[in-house]
C-alpha cells in the first residue's frame, strides 16, 4: 500500500514539474518577443513602416517627377482645453496666413470640443505653432497630391480629388494602377520637349490671340507622345480654379475639321490606289462644279497642275479630282477606316474625341472630305495617321506610356514603301517651294502640310465665314522621319508680321519650325546630310509638265512668292 502511495505522489510531481516547465519556457519565449505570430501581428513592424500605402508617383520618360504625394499637416484645436481661447485665436491668426482672428474666436466658442484652425500648414507655420507651446492644439497629417511641374503637362496628368482619387487625365484613366501604389508610372513624355513645345505654342497663342491651341510631338517609330500641349491650360495643384475652357484637352478631346491638312491623306490614298500617278495632271483652270455647289481655290493658279503642284499649292480643285480618280467615296471610306479615323481615339486619357464622319457619302461630301471639310477628327487622330503614312507605312498607335523594347504585335500595313517615299517628297516640296516655306530650317529637311480650315458657324450650320483653324503638320528629318510635330491654332488673328494673314502657313508653320529647331538637338537628331538634300532636290528636275518641257514646274514654283 505504502509503495503504491509513493508512486502516485512521484507521478503527480512529475506531471506538475512538466507543466511548470512548459509554462516557464513559454514565459521566457513570450518575454523575448521571439514567437513568430507576434512578429507578424505586431503593431508597426518594420514591414508596415516600409510600405507606405499611397498613390504611385508619375514620372516622365527620363525619370523626372511629374506627380507625387506629400504629407501635409493640418491644425485642429480642442477649445475646451485652451487656457484662453480668445488670446489663442489672436496668437494663431498672427502666425498663420489666411486665418482671421475673429473667425477663430467664433470657432473657439465655449462648449466646443473640436475646431479646425487651418488646413495644410507650411513647414514654417508648423514651427511657429510648435513654438507657441499652447495646450489643446493638435496636428493632423494627411496626404496631398503634388504636381511640381505645375502647368507643364496639366492635360496629360489631370488631377486627383481630396481623397486622392483620380478625377481627370491619366490620373483618372490609370486610376486603378495608381491606387495600387508601387512602382512609379512612367510616361512617354519628355519634360524638356514638353517645355519647348509649350513655350513656343504659348508665344503664338498670345501673339495671334487664338482662343485655343494644340501641339503634339509624336515619335513616328514607336507611337510614343513626347509632348502634348493644349492651351489654355491650368495648374493641377489648384484644379478647382480651372475654367471649363482650360480643362478641355484640344488635342484628344475636341474634334475639328482640319481642312487642307487632310490632303496628306487624300494624296496617300490616290497614290496608293495605283489609279493616280505622281505626275498625272488635273485641270485647275476653273472652279469645280458638283451639283449646285462650286469648289474653288484660295489662290487659283488657273492652269493644269501636276500632283506635286496640287499638293504644294494646296489646290482644292485638283485634290477633289484626285480623290474621284482614286475611287471616290468607296475608296475614301475604306482608307479612313484603315487609318482609324472613324473610331474614337485609343489613348490613356479620358477625354477621347469621337470623329464626326459623314453618314451619306454623296459626291459633294466626297469632294469636301478630300480637302478636310465635312469630317472632324481630333488632332491626335490625324497625327497618328500621318505618322503611319509617312513613317514606315504601317499603322501607328499613339501612347502616353513609355514603351520599352519593340511592340509585341506587327503593325498593320497602310501603304506601300513607294507611296511612303512619294508622300515624303510631296511633303518636303510643300516646305521647300509650296505653302509651307515658313517652316524651312537650315539644319533639318522638314516635310509638312499647311491647313486653314473654316470653322463651323455657331449654330452648327454652314461656316462662320470669319474664324479659321490654322494648322501645320511637320515631319523631321523628312528623309527618314523620326518625329512628327503638329500645331493647330483655333481662331488666330493675323497681325502686321503676317500682313493680316491667318493661314496655317503663316501662323502655325513657324511654330513647328521653332519647335523642331529646338528639340532636334535635345533628341539627338543629326542635321540632314547634303547628299539627302541633293537627292530630294534632284527629283524636281524630272517632273514632266504640260508641254513636255522638264523644269517648268520648278520655275513655276520658284516664281511663287512665299507661301500661304
Amino acid at each position, binding site marked *: 500500500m505504502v509503495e503504491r502511495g509513493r508512486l502516485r505522489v512521484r507521478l503527480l510531481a512529475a506531471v506538475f514539474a512538466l507543466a511548470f516547465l512548459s509554462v*516557464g519556457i513559454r*514565459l*521566457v519565449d513570450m*518575454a*523575448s*518577443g521571439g514567437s513568430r505570430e507576434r512578429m507578424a501581428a505586431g503593431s*508597426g*513592424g*518594420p514591414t*508596415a*513602416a*516600409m510600405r*507606405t500605402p499611397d498613390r504611385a508617383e508619375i514620372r516622365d520618360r527620363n525619370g*523626372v*517627377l*511629374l506627380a*507625387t*504625394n*506629400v*504629407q501635409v499637416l493640418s491644425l485642429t484645436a480642442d477649445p475646451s482645453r485652451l487656457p484662453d481661447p480668445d488670446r489663442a485665436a489672436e496668437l494663431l491668426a498672427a502666425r498663420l496666413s489666411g486665418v482671421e482672428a475673429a473667425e477663430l474666436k467664433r470657432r473657439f466658442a465655449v462648449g466646443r470640443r473640436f475646431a479646425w484652425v487651418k488646413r495644410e500648414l507650411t513647414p514654417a507655420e508648423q514651427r511657429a505653432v510648435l513654438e507657441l507651446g499652447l495646450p489643446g492644439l493638435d496636428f493632423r497629417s494627411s496626404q496631398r497630391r*503634388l504636381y*511640381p*511641374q*505645375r502647368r*507643364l503637362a496639366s492635360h496629360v496628368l489631370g488631377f486627383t480629388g481630396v481623397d486622392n482619387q483620380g478625377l481627370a487625365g491619366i490620373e483618372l484613366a490609370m486610376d486603378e494602377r495608381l491606387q495600387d501604389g508601387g512602382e512609379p508610372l512612367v510616361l512617354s513624355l519628355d*519634360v*524638356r520637349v*514638353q*517645355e*519647348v513645345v*509649350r*513655350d513656343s505654342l504659348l508665344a503664338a497663342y498670345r501673339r495671334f490671340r487664338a482662343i485655343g491651341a494644340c501641339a503634339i510631338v509624336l515619335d513616328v517609330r514607336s507611337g510614343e507622345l513626347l509632348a502634348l500641349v493644349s492651351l489654355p491650360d491650368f495648374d493641377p495643384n489648384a484644379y478647382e480654379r480651372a475654367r471649363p475652357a482650360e480643362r478641355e484637352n484640344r488635342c484628344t478631346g475636341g474634334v475639328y475639321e482640319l481642312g487642307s491638312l487632310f490632303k496628306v491623306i487624300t494624296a496617300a490614298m490616290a497614290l496608293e490606289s495605283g489609279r493616280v500617278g505622281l505626275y498625272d495632271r488635273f485641270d485647275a483652270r476653273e472652279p469645280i462644279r458638283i451639283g449646285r455647289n462650286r469648289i474653288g481655290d484660295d489662290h487659283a493658279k488657273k492652269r493644269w497642275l501636276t500632283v506635286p503642284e496640287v499638293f504644294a499649292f494646296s489646290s482644292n480643285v485638283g485634290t477633289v479630282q484626285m480623290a474621284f480618280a482614286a475611287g471616290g467615296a468607296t475608296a475614301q471610306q475604306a482608307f479612313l477606316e484603315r487609318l482609324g479615323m472613324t473610331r474614337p481615339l485609343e489613348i490613356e486619357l479620358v477625354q477621347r474625341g469621337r470623329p464626326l464622319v459623314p453618314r451619306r457619302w454623296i459626291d459633294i461630301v466626297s469632294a469636301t472630305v478630300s480637302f478636310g471639310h465635312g469630317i472632324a477628327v481630333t488632332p491626335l487622330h490625324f497625327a497618328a495617321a500621318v505618322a503611319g503614312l509617312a513613317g514606315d507605312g504601317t499603322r501607328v498607335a499613339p501612347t502616353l506610356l513609355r514603351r520599352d523594347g519593340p511592340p509585341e504585335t506587327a503593325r498593320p500595313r497602310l501603304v506601300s514603301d513607294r507611296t511612303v517615299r512619294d508622300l515624303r517628297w510631296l511633303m518636303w516640296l510643300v516646305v521647300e517651294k509650296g505653302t509651307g516655306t515658313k517652316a524651312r*530650317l*537650315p*539644319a*533639318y529637311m522638314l516635310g509638312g502640310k499647311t491647313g486653314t480650315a473654316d470653322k463651323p458657324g455657331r449654330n452648327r450650320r454652314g461656316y462662320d465665314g470669319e474664324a479659321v483653324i490654322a494648322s501645320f503638320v511637320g515631319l523631321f528629318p523628312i528623309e527618314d522621319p523620326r518625329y512628327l510635330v503638329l500645331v493647330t491654332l483655333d481662331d488666330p488673328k493675323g497681325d502686321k508680321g503676317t500682313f493680316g494673314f491667318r493661314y496655317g502657313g503663316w501662323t502655325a508653320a513657324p511654330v513647328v519650325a521653332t519647335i*523642331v*529647331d*529646338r528639340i*532636334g*538637338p*535635345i533628341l539627338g*537628331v*543629326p*542635321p540632314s546630310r547634303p547628299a539627302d538634300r541633293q537627292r530630294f532636290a534632284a527629283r524636281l528636275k524630272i517632273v514632266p509638265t504640260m508641254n513636255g518641257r522638264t523644269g517648268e514646274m520648278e520655275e513655276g514654283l520658284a516664281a511663287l512668292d512665299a507661301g500661304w
Partner: protein
Amino acid sequence: MISRPAIVLLALLLLAVGAVYQLKYAVRNLELQRAAIDRAIVETRWRLRSLRASWAYLTRPERLARLAAELGLEPASATRIVELDSIGTRDQLEFAARPVPVPLPSGREVLLRAKPVVTFAFDSGRERR
C-alpha cells in the same frame, strides 16, 4: 527543516525569475527603440518625398530656361550642330590653338593658349571635303 536540494532549487528558481524579468525589460526597450526607428523611417520617407518634389519644382525646365536667359544663355538650336568631318582638320586645330582670354580674380586678364598635341600627323586631306 528544508532539505538541501530544495534550497538549491529555490535559489535556481529565484535566479530564473530574475533572468526572465531582465529579459522582459530588455525586450521591451528594444521594442520601443524599434517603434521609434520605424516612426523615423516613415518620417524620413515623407521628408525625402517632399525634398524630391522640391527638387523637381526647382529644376523644372520653365524655371531653368528663365534662369539661363538671365545668364545670357540662349535656347539650343539645331544650327549649332555640325559634323566634325565638315570642319577641316586645319580649322579644328586653329580653333583649338586660339588664345582664350581668362579674367583673373585680381581683375587682370590673361590669354590662355593651348598647344595642340597633334599637329598634322593625322591630316588625311579630309578638310578639303
